[in-house]
């Protein structure tokens, strides 16, 4: 049994202007100690998927279908209080997109780190000890605990946010764009830290990013999302050495590289669909160079080679 199994998950936002199908039938699995990268462009549903895994989808959104099993237990069926006691932060935690800029300015860093521990029955002393241990683990001096967020640099704040995600020793940490606001040098420092935490703590990490370079820093497996769906899933080697989906292929060719030939950069004409009204069939079809008559029906996600899945009619049995 995998640590995390997501099956046919659908999370929709019921807005006044229509239903946004932000996550629309996503399935994936994550083994203990594994790292999974989720890549995709702005608005394709990455953060919504992450919020769903923590059962923290903000209104007017909600999970409308599918299951999320952690060690076989479906958390979509649990009550909110059960999720709070057993799952959230304990089994699965999250570094939210932009969290480093959302630290509470009026509390010291230490107070913010121990708060969830106090809520989960730690004594103040135990919590302070744990906070000191974690702050060292993320490469900061313990004196940071007595400082206010505005006194810290971007990189230091992001380390604090990472420490906060670890307070209840979760098995899975989701990191949603953890380095997007940072400069490359600081980004590399943070990614190094996450690698170390993964190796030393055998922690499973789900790394969400739009950056194909960042995703390879950490991910053994990669899921490529497009317009609310996973269109390709495989090991990092499979995705980069043998990309199958025309979207993945085009995305890789759109990235300028630091070494090698200077090829003509590709782009994908058009823009992603409005998720209130996605095109019928393959959602990538309107932008796809390879589209043919089958593509106005929805392609199934099939296993093309061992462990390498793709949702595209070029590979499916018709």
């Amino acid at each position, binding site marked *: 049994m995998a640590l995390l199994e997501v099956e046919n998950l659908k999370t929709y936002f019921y807005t006044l202007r229509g239903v946004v199908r932000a996550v629309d039938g996503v399935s994936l699995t994550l083994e203990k100690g594994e790292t999974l990268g989720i890549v995709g*462009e702005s608005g394709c549903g990455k953060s919504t998927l992450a919020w769903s895994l923590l059962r923290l989808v903000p209104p007017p959104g909600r999970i409308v279908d599918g299951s999320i099993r952690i060690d076989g237990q479906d958390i979509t069926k649990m009550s909110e209080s059960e999720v709070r006691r057993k799952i959230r932060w304990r089994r699965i935690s999250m570094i939210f997109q932009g969290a480093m800029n959302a630290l509470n300015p009026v509390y010291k860093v230490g107070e913010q780190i121990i708060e969830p521990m106090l809520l989960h029955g730690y004594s103040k002393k135990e919590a302070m000890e744990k906070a000191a241990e974690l702050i060292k683990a993320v490469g900061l001096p313990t004196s940071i605990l007595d400082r206010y967020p505005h006194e810290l640099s971007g990189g230091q704040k992001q380390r604090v946010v990472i420490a906060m995600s670890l307070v209840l020793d979760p098995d899975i940490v989701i990191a949603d764009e953890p380095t997007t606001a940072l400069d490359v*040098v600081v980004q590399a420092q943070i990614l190094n830290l996450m690698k170390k935490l993964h190796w030393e703590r055998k922690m499973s990490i789900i790394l969400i990013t739009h950056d194909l370079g960042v995703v390879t820093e950490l991910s053994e497996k990669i899921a490529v999302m497009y317009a609310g769906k996973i269109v390709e899933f495989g090991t990092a080697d499979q995705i980069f050495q043998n990309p199958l989906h025309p979207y993945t292929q085009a995305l890789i060719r*759109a990235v300028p590289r630091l070494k090698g030939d200077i090829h003509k950069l590709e*782009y994908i004409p058009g*823009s992603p669909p409005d998720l209130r009204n996605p095109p019928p069939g393959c959602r990538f079809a309107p932008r796809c160079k390879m589209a043919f008559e089958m593509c106005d029906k929805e392609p199934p996600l099939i296993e093309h080679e061992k462990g390498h899945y793709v949702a595209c009619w070029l590979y499916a049995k018709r």
Partner: protein
Amino acid sequence: MYRVELGEEILKVQDLKVWFPLKRGVIGTILGKPRLFVHAVDGISFNLRRREIFCLVGESGCGKTTTGKALLRLVPIYSGKAYFKPRKETLAKLENMGVTPDENGFVEIFGLPEKKFKPLRRDIQMIYQDPYGSLNPRFRIKDILEEVLIVHKIGETKEERLDIIERVLEMVKLTPPSEFINRFPHQLSGGQRQRVAIARAIIANPSIIVADEPVSMLDVSIRAEILEVLLNLRKLLDTSYIFITHDLAIARYICDRIAVMYLGKIVELGDARDVIADPLHPYTEALIAAIPDPDPENRKKLRDLKIKGEVPSPIFIPPGCRFHPRCVYYDQAKERDRDIRDLCPSVEPPLAEVKPGRYVACYKHEIVRQLVKSGVAPTQTGSSQ
């Protein structure tokens, strides 16, 4: 791929400084505390040629945007000169106002009073990073573009102006123009909005466009499309670009030369591809080593970071080489190398040509040491010859 033949020099910036004064407060003023400055741009020089794409790279806060804004005089210039070669029509207007160019047709633009600078606003334009914030949300696309034409008195009649607007929209591939002309910015995608911003910058046919991170807010899948628009325009209109980016990989593809900035100063300057393939300044080396080029092997090892600590405040610039507190080379070499030990923490290294066309401000290079030791005044030059 991506390169074209360059023309003559059209801009020469010399020792530009943009310092922003910090507010002292009443007590500070009474006590006569020294005035503090943010040294956003702290003495940089470079030249730009026609059709050239000159790239400024560096971490956030190093002074890239401020440099770009200085050329449009959108920030107060503390000191320095910029010699610019205006087009014929602009020159005629300037001469009418009593401004005479030098024998090569250059005019010093930082010293001009605002009224006399006005005709030059047409020749130097800027594209901003944020396609969401840079367009007035209450204006239709055609009004946004027509405004520029009216300000610069281009096109006699409304019909003539509309004609120009349609042609420019075609150039930036917002086609058919009739479909876009009456829309508001919020009715466009991010990529389309950035194309309107480009259209607005080119509609007056400027000689220089300062493009400040023009694609960094856009999705990867559409970036190349926008870059292509910029590159086609340079072929079509002979535009030169000051291209600001923190993405060295993009710079490698589209830029001719690159200047690496650190804390308000250019620390390395040279052919973009040479600098990236073979960086000569320890900071450039560290920047490149930090970039995750997509490769599944990356996850197997920690990235070797050739830099210590964090960027210091631009208020208190470290003495000597401003990079020395973070420099790994300095740490390693200071025991065995007396020059490094003596010079790095105390004397600012000049930007010197250490190989043909390659300028570096670092004492690792013998030529830089010699310049300082022989007492030649530390000069900074970024000329392209």
